[in-house]
């Protein structure tokens, strides 16, 4: 396929104005409780640090299955996201809880390695038991206009994933323009992504509402064209319940009911979980709990 940058022009002012409209919707009381629970169920609880250890991974797995003991019917999160060498630990810790294990791969976070190593990395994670692979695209090659290279790389990783479900990280903070983000989304979906994801969390800016809107609109166009539903994962920088709910408003008004589900929408975050729990508690009791009551993992 021949990719062209100007195939889908994106108007920056228009995107940002639309986002401002989403932020004025009213979410409170029952509507808020429902949205917070939905957001918890969409979390990819993430630890991606050089100092990660088996103990640390087990801790976040415990949190993933039962985010908080303080309240009834708090759902489990969608997945735990770790480096490939921690997949086995996570898999064991999560057992049959239904919480998935996602693993970053393909020379995360820069993606600056050979395809051979990237595929090895992917196969290793899958063999260790990863249900989902979060790959990074080669941003340098993309910005050089080598779109076919980017496509082929994603397609090869998709093949290496086998049964595992592929999330493609565009690292939007490095892509410079909404138009680039749109094109990268199209390439990723065409090449076999099950999900498209904004960021690694290692680059600022990470996920933003306008970037996510551009990607959701790309998903919508892909759905119109093919009937296939692709998932969306904003990751990095979403720390507050209020922001998370703004993302849900955007999903609701852009892609509707079918995407308001952990199968098609995820939040890549770690500190967001406690804010969601704290707000949930506040809705139930009318008071804010001390942060000391929420586990820091």
């Amino acid at each position, binding site marked *: 396929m021949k990719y062209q940058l*100007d195939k*889908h*022009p*994106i*108007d920056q*002012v*228009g*995107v940002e*104005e*639309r986002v401002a409209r989403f932020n*004025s*919707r*009213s*979410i*409170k*009381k*029952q*509507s*808020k409780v*429902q*949205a917070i629970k*939905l957001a918890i169920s969409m979390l990819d609880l993430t630890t991606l640090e050089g100092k990660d250890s088996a103990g640390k991974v087990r801790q976040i797995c415990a949190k993933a299955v039962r985010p908080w003991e303080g309240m009834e019917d708090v759902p489990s999160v969608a997945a735990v996201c770790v480096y490939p060498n921690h997949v086995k630990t996570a898999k064991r810790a999560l057992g049959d809880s239904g919480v998935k294990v996602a693993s970053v791969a393909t020379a995360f976070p820069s993606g600056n390695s050979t395809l051979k190593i990237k595929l090895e990395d992917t196969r290793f994670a899958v063999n260790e038991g990863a*249900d989902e692979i979060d790959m990074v695209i080669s941003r340098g090659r993309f910005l050089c206009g080598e779109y076919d290279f980017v496509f082929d790389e994603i397609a090869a990783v998709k093949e290496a994933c086998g*049964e*595992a*479900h592929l999330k493609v990280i565009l690292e939007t903070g490095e892509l410079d323009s909404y138009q680039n983000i749109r094109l990268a989304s199209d390439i990723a979906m065409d090449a076999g992504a*099950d999900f498209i994801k904004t960021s690694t969390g290692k680059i600022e800016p990470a996920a933003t509402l306008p970037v996510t809107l551009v990607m959701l*609109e790309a998903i*919508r166009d892909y*759905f*119109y064209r*093919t*009937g*296939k*539903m*692709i*998932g969306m994962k904003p990751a990095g920088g979403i720390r507050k319940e209020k922001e998370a709910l703004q993302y*849900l*408003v955007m999903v*609701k*008004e852009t*892609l*509707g*009911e*079918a995407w*308001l589900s952990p*199968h098609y929408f995820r939040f890549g975050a770690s500190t967001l979980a406690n804010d969601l729990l704290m707000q949930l508690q506040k809705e139930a009791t009318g008071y804010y709990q001390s942060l000391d009551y929420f586990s820091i993992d």
Partner: protein
Amino acid sequence: MSKKNKLILNGKKKINRPKTNASLQKTSVSLPKTKGKQKPVINFKTDWQYASAPESISHIQLKKRYELFINGTFVAPDKPVYFDTINPATEQKIAEIAEAGESDVNKAVKAAADAQKYVWSKIPASERAKYLFRIARIIQEKSRELAVIETMDGGKPIRESRDIDIPLAAAHFFYYAGWADKLNYAVPGKTPQPLGVAGQIIPWNFPLLMAAWKIAPALATGNTVVLKPAETTSLTALKLAEIIQEADLPPGVVNIITGAGKTGSLIVNHPDINKIAFTGSTDVGKIIQRSLAGTAKKYTLELGGKAANIIFEDASIDQAVEGIVNGIFFNQGHVCCAGSRLFVQESVFDKVMRKLKDRMETLVVGDPLDKNTDIGAINSKAQWEKITKYQAIGLKEGGECYQSSCSVPSQGYWFRPTVFWNVSQASRIVQEEIFGPVLTVQTFRTVAEVVEKANNTPYGLSGGIWTDKGSKIFKMAGELRAGVIWANTFNKFDPTSPFGGYKESGVGREGGLHGLMPYLKY
């Protein structure tokens, strides 16, 4: 990973299809057609709903009965005639409004003429500016109350009255306050003088904003004012009268008298009025122009429109769809510069229509006081009847029609967002101003074709161009015969920008530097 999960993750999960729109329609409209294979459909009827958030009305102060604001005080009309102003969303009466008769109009004009001659033309221009700044600040202070009253009286969503109408009204006073002592620089080499008394008649679609558009430049240039708001939406103009009292403006500088067309014609024909500023329908504009013929009165008329909103294939389509929605559904389509004629390049017609229909499904129609509401109530019963009539005409003319499937309240005047396609230049719904949330869509192939079609109308108030190519924007803007051209946006207003029409859309400009000139002689 289990097979079950894989099925879902590969995107083969069953897609919920929404109920057909037909079951929710009152009028007969055709369903969107699909050729062969069923198109994937997005379901916007979500399980998760927003919380209703009606703006409180406990803080507003309204009188049961409003008198005429003449010479700085509220006075009863000589003949005790009053009419009701109602909330179009509930059909409940809000207050009684006095109707100004001939003797009342005479009093108001006399007060204005005296104030102009003895007070307003005598004080330093910088003092005039101070009063205008003061009015602007009080509008800001009372913005919440004004927004709620505007919404109750006119049916527009609180989001718009709060974020657009009231802030812009204050902005107009601020802007023209700045000009008051700089008029010599506005007209270099000349000594501009005020005209005298301005008679100003304003419409019901932006009640307070239109009052600001009229009063601010008139006062800045040293004129005094007799203003008549529309009979269905007098309340915020009368609240403005209270603000003017609070600002301690000298009596008679602004007089606000209420009533319907008869009161308006008394103002227009009054011999001691030096200038008429009218915003409203083209029909009434023609009547005014006829009655002013042969008099020395200056006039500006801001009349109807049937703006072309033009989408080229190289536009950013998702943002253009927002522009279409903002162009026609803003303020229920009660906007003279509404983008009511959509022209879409043939190659992207299907794509645009599909996105537009989906976007229409997400518009929230209902209680104007609810902060979630995108589209409020139709301003009056008469207007609702007019829009309904045009819908019937459109269907009879063979247009295909799609309406949002939203439910509307049983009480009040409501009209679902509506789009017609398969219509032509010859269709009445394409030619005539509907002034409601009804869009017509036509296609085109070339730039020359769309310019010709866009200009093929008696109106010429505004237009919109959507393309990623800057050169195309400049070419189009030069060729479209309309007073305002928006590029990659629509319905944007600013006090610094002149506004006005070509052809039957009006005479003269309001706003910006241009907006000073119709109030000056030199």
